């Protein structure tokens, strides 16, 4: 990757961090706030009332985490890029299937509390809601294409005919019918391991359930379908005041 890309990312990161610190300063939130980056694994499934066999699929998540602590409670948000992939097939074990690779930007806001505190370890539970935006989608699948049939005459004089199974893979083109904004609720459990007073490692398991459909509603004119997403992610969080120090001196 060219060097200027790294420079661009670095500048963007510094600008974003400075903006966040400015915001937190203005609301006096810096003292108890942590900022970090997280990354991990996602597993998503579409739940709908149609007759298809839905299957869950793997994906990934990366995000910027902001955590504001007050007593044993904390308010947390994690601006993430998350994949919510799924697959469905008409029949069990059928060769006929369709799979979606969906990428979302997601902003959950959670309220949590630490219910267990040891010397270096804190364990928390949290819950809240999220808003997401459907960035892009790729579809891959196999269909019996009746407009591409094969026939052959065997030695008994019988004709064998069948529709060819046809594979397709395409970038999904959004239309007005798509509901790209989504909402839902989330809950999770997390472990914070304190490396020192200012830096901690985080390991979180989260569950997200959307309550909005990917297709826009037309009264009763839609099928009920929503995502269930499990996430395991880990990351590093630092005290924001030290992030400020980091920006000034280039080291923690």
């Amino acid at each position: 990757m060219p060097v200027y890309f790294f420079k661009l990312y670095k500048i963007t990161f510094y600008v974003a961090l400075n903006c966040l610190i400015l915001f937190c300063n203005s609301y006096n939130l810096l003292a108890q706030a942590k900022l970090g980056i997280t990354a991990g694994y996602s597993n998503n499934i579409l739940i709908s009332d149609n007759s298809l066999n839905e299957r869950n699929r793997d994906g990934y998540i990366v995000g910027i985490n902001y955590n504001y602590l007050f007593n044993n409670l904390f308010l947390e948000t994690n601006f993430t890029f998350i994949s919510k992939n799924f697959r469905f097939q008409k029949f069990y074990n059928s060769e006929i299937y369709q799979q979606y690779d969906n990428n979302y930007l997601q902003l959950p806001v959670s309220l949590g509390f630490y219910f267990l505190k040891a010397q270096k370890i804190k364990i928390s539970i949290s819950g809240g809601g999220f808003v997401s935006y459907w960035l892009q989608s790729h579809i891959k699948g196999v269909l019996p294409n009746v407009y591409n049939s094969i026939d052959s005459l065997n030695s008994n004089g019988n004709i064998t005919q069948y529709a060819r199974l046809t594979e397709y893979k395409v970038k999904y083109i959004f239309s007005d019918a798509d509901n790209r904004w989504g909402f839902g609720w989330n809950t999770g459990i997390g472990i914070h391991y304190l490396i020192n007073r200012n830096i901690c490692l985080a390991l979180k398991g989260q569950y997200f359930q959307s309550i909005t459909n990917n297709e826009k509603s037309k009264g009763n004119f839609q099928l009920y379908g929503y995502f269930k997403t499990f996430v395991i992610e880990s990351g590093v969080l630092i005290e924001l005041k030290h992030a400020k120090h980091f920006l000034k001196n280039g080291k923690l």
Partner: protein
Amino acid sequence: MVNFKKLFSLISLFVFFSLIVSCYRNSALSYSDNPQTFKDVFENYWMKMKSNYAYWDLDTTNWAAVFNKYDPLFNNLDLNKENDIKKSVSYFRDISKNLLDNHYNINFLNPVLTDSAIFPAYDRKSKLISFHPPYPYWKIDTNYLDKGYLMAKNTDFINNGEALTVLCGTIKHKILYISFNHCSLSESYTSPNGYYIKYALQSYFAMLNNLSDTIKGLIIDVRSNLGGDLNDLNFFAKHFVNHQHLYGYAQYKIGEGIYSYSTWLPALVNPNDNYNNIGKPIIVLADNFSASTAEAFVMFFKTLPNSLLIGENTFGATGAIVEDSSMNCGSFTIPDFMSVQLSSARFKFINNKIYENIGFPPDVFIPFNSTSIQEGRDLVLEKAISVIH
């Protein structure tokens, strides 16, 4: 020290956000698979149409408004009263009068309504000044064929009251002609009573694969052919190509969502091993009742470089009826009340245009002329003969 004012504002924001989130609800209508009331029948029909209909993105019918209008009306009907059962037909006819899918039709299973049927595309066409019913052209076209022509029938395959009829032979010893009135060719080819059809087709394919120099052109007549088995296209057309031939694109529903469409997949004719380069003009004859698979024939031949289409616009039922449970849309049944026929796939021609409810236009328009027909003259066939030198 905790700043309680700021903390309170943050928590308020969180609660507000949660409230917004909780306000989003999805309302899914449930319906009975075994309807006991007219309300059940309608809601079953409405839901299945919603998931099984292939043209919601193009159709102008407001299906949500249909529900709001007709759900209370059906609720007032009694499934045990004969008059109410008859009245329901007018409701279903009104609901479906403007549906785009020209394959759409309803046959009633209820004993009170066995004589009733709804076919909006036919109703719309019957109101046109140019309307004419399907006509069995083979009855007069034998007059044009040279001695030794073959006419084969198979009464095991009936469509619109007509047995499958294949007519083939030469005209003026310079034109190879074939007509078939519906698409059951490959099924009939191997059926127990399909011997004559098989013999006629084998003779035709033999002539086609060893085309003599005296033959200057071909006429393929699918007028008043209401379609049938889509496999017939490859069965017949593979004799005209030496490589996979793209003639359009097909699209399928990939889920039960109203807009859950697949990408457009290639519509292909796969070649025959015995291909013989025909290289001669191919004239295709079509009329207002060339429908469904017959339209696929028309559009396939239109993509060949040496073809000409003569006659009228085709019917405009270009989708495919597929009796395959792997499809996510298409025909369905309301138990003990009615069966609804719908396209399971939709088709667009190689120019990316969908001709559903429009019909494929001819290169040379010659309308149906009942006076000439009564006199035993087929003006469309005469025109086709005149352009082959």
